[in-house]
């Protein structure tokens, strides 16, 4: 950037900071190409570079009331733009860390993997072992025998109580066998 342009931008910033609203358009026209070029050098996507340039312009306008004339205005604007670029990169980084919701189906295929099948088989085996240690009446209460269908002879409250007792027993056995 040449010295004349830098001086012009600094003057526009100072006028805007003084409260001259008419210099807003001038400043925007002066800053836009500078900011876009700066952002484009660091961000390859044109749309992202435009977003950064826009956000920077908005931030400059929002903070201009506290602008310190002793500092170089262009450097101040570049500092805000650099912060916006860092923010955009962080946002992209976070997006990469999250799974893509649109392609989530490829991770949840209906056919289980060999590992999944082995784990499921093991689980079934240990569960049947644990159930095998229960008494017939407990298994009946859990609805695991044919006699369960005949439980209508007892009252609902009694069936519930028996089922609860059977579940507690199974839980205790499970924790004794597998921790």
């Amino acid at each position, binding site marked *: 950037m040449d010295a004349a342009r830098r001086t012009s931008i600094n003057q526009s910033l100072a006028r805007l900071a003084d409260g001259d*609203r008419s210099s*807003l358009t001038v400043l925007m026209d002066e800053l836009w190409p500078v900011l876009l070029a700066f952002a484009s050098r660091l961000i390859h996507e044109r749309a992202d570079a435009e977003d950064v340039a826009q956000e920077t312009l908005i931030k400059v306008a929002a903070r201009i009331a506290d602008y310190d004339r002793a500092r170089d205005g262009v450097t101040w604007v570049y500092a805000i733009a650099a912060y916006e670029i860092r923010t955009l990169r962080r946002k992209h980084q976070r997006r990469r860390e999250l799974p893509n919701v649109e392609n989530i189906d490829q991770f949840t295929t209906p056919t289980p993997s060999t590992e999944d099948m082995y784990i499921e088989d093991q689980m079934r085996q240990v569960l049947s072992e644990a159930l095998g240690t229960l008494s017939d009446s407990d298994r009946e209460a859990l609805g695991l025998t044919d006699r369960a269908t005949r439980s209508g002879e007892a009252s609902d409250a009694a069936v519930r109580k028996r089922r609860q007792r059977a579940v507690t027993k199974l839980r205790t056995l499970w924790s004794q066998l597998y921790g």
Partner: protein
Amino acid sequence: MVDREDLLQRVSHAYEVGRWKMAVRVLAIVVPVAILCIALSGRPVVSLGLAVLLGASVVVLRWRNRQGLRVANVGLTAGILPLTAGLLISQVGIASPVVCMTLCVGSGLLAGLWAGYALGGTRTGAIDWVTVGVVAIVTAFLGCIDLGTDMLVAVILSLIGSGLLAGLIQSRFLRSVS
């Protein structure tokens, strides 16, 4: 592709919001001082009115432009001294009218000298001088409202007189230097 008009509108909105945010920061000083004055005042409704007038005027002045910001800050700073003197006189209970008058005139003179000194070194128009005077007087009134009309008049006259004198001396001095 960026819509220029839409962007200009957003930038303009952000600019105004930023200026308001900067302007209202002065309330961090005005509000506690006003609450103290209203709490200690014998005429709280009048004090409340003065506080609202002062708060609104300094916020609008600071929002408008940088010159307004300076004018509001100088007026507020200048008015704090007579305000404090007024609060002290009414709270300590100084009975002697001579002592009260001396304190009021003294604080008014110092406040005026300070305002004249602060504004005299820069290019300031008549409207700015009047605005500083009004802000300083309203601030001073917040503390001096219970002292009576003669004390209020003494504060106003001493503040304006010394302010004008300090401003004149400083502008003459600057002219002779240049």
